């Protein structure tokens, strides 16, 4: 094999894994980093986004718009759930996690009851391209670009907009923000909605590549958990490099030993990381920076 096709293949594998990790963990990481809540219904928000995207796309909407529909629907559902359930549990973070698991059970099974065990999806768009002897899905490359774009967008949102500044202030010093006249409840509501929307976006982006089943959210769960745990509380400092490192591990193991070992490798990595640096990468990097 020539040098270029070989290195392209490696890049493709890595990019694929990186995109999956970043896109699937973003929503979880925002809610966890900002509110300290692990949203166990994360997978179901992804499922929600995927279902809406697939059905609107099949109804004739262009894919990007369909993905937007999926994202917004998930965000809306997230905000409603925050209002009705999560809001009452902020002072009991562990209980709020349990509650999201209850929501997850309800959502999965309700979709199963209402829409049946599978739904037809949409095909993967954009076709494929040849590099060397192998062909690669262009959509997968687009997903990699989306992941990079997503990180950039979130960075801008949290560091360059008014909402971002207020949100970060609220998270760091809730009493102080309240004293300065910030409606912290609204900030939490919006943050939860944002996290749910990002999950919906993940579902929308991956909808063309997956089978639509009510339990499809579970496919994302392990990867997104692992990335958030390795990354630690700060999504920018921690989650992005965590995704990069884990993507290398996963891509390498998947290429050599198959999907399963990719996943086992992630799990071993996470256990080693928390043993070596409690608080995750972000705590480690922050300590090293000082």
């Amino acid at each position, binding site marked *: 094999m020539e040098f270029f096709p070989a290195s392209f293949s490696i890049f493709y594998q890595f990019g694929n894994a990186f995109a999956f990790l970043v896109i699937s963990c973003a929503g979880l990481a925002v809610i966890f980093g900002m509110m300290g809540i692990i949203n166990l219904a994360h997978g179901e928000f992804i499922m929600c986004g995927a279902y809406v995207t697939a059905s609107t796309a099949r109804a004739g909407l262009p894919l990007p718009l369909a993905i937007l529909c999926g994202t917004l629907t998930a965000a809306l559902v997230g905000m409603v759930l925050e209002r009705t359930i999560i809001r009452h549990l902020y002072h009991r973070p562990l209980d709020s996690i349990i509650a999201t698991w209850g929501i997850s059970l309800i959502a999965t099974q309700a979709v199963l*009851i209402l829409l049946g065990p599978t739904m037809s999806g949409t095909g993967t768009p954009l076709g494929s391209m040849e590099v060397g002897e192998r062909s690669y899905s262009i959509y997968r490359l687009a997903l990699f670009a989306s992941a990079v774009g997503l990180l950039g967008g979130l960075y801008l949102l949290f560091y360059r907009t008014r909402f971002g500044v207020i949100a970060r202030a609220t998270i760091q010093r809730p009493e102080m923000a309240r004293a300065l006249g910030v409606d912290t409840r609204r900030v939490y509501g919006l943050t939860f909605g944002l996290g749910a929307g990002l999950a919906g976006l993940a579902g929308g982006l991956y909808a063309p590549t997956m089978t639509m089943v009510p339990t499809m959210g579970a496919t994302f769960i*392990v990867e997104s958990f692992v990335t958030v745990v390795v990354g630690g509380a700060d999504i920018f400092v921690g989650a992005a490099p965590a995704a990069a490192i884990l993507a290398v591990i996963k891509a390498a193991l998947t290429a050599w030993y198959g999907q399963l070992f990719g996943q086992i490798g992630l799990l071993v990595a996470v256990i080693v990381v928390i043993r070596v640096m409690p608080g995750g990468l972000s705590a480690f990097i922050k300590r090293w920076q000082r």
Partner: protein
Amino acid sequence: MNPIELPDASKAPARRGLKLWLSRLEGPQTMGRGPVFWAVVVLAVLAAVSYPAFANDYVVGNAAYFFVWTFMAMGLGVVWGYCGALSFGQTAFFGLAGYAYGVITINIGSAFGATWLALLLAVALGGVFALLIGYFMFYGRIKGVFVGIVTLSVTLVLETFMAQTAGPQWRIGDARLNGFNGMSGMPPLTVPWPGGDIMLYSGTALYYVLLGMVVLCYLGLRVLLNAPFGNVLVAIRENPERAEMLGYDIRLYQMLAFGLGGALAGLSGALYTAWGQYITPSSMGLTAAALPIVWVAVGGRRDITATLLGCLLVIAGFQSLTIYGSQYALVVMGALLVFTVLVTPDGLVFTAINRMGRLFKRVRR
């Protein structure tokens, strides 16, 4: 107010051995004390013992199935309720031990009580695996939600692993793992008996064996939780820093409690496999992992009695709903979980027992 009651240990002869352990059936870490409580317990056990006389074999087998799960619930009660480490992945130990029971019994058969040896080994495996995970978590100073995430990830990865073992190369001795379809064909628990072994298929005999195990496990946990070990677990839950600064190696205690929880989940898993001669990867999946949380949360995690009763009640309710389809039952479980967390965070059964206890006291006065 009552006259002050001083600890009179200095006057009482020091309790030793069996007597000391029996005295720990009652204590600060468990609800229920005094003759009335124990009379109710004895009546409940007697009712359970005489139950098969009034019910048909199918219903009795079903009740035995309820018992199978209680060990995992009580184990989670210890880990979560008493030690304060919220494990989302007890099903990992359940599934591991369930598969282990299958693999061992398929390979060594059921003669000479070998199934009991398999049960023991499977439980030990569940416990050792939990100790290992516990070592990495607690010695890695993992706390709070991260314990939940790591344990949940472990069980989901195990599910994925087992689901892809469909090929013929995935066999351990004579036992094929069979991937997604699950493993079957293992013998049930078998009691060696002169003139023909007694196979404990789902039915009255198995019911009695399991009832005995539930009672023993419940009483044993009461003793353990009221012993110094249980006191330290509660201390760690309430204030880990203080507990360490009283001279306790809290990581060791957490790891041991987690190992115990894993062994109990393993007991449920091995018994489940023996009960139905069947186990699948989905027993370690996301939905399966949620159910122990529902039982323990709804029952009440801070007390082993509430956990046990809650578990039995919720499973019975779940089963009666399954007539309409398991997806409906699961929706109800999810709703029950959300409701419990919002309205009675201490658990429905726990709150109910407490209210009744208070009412009872008021009536007596």
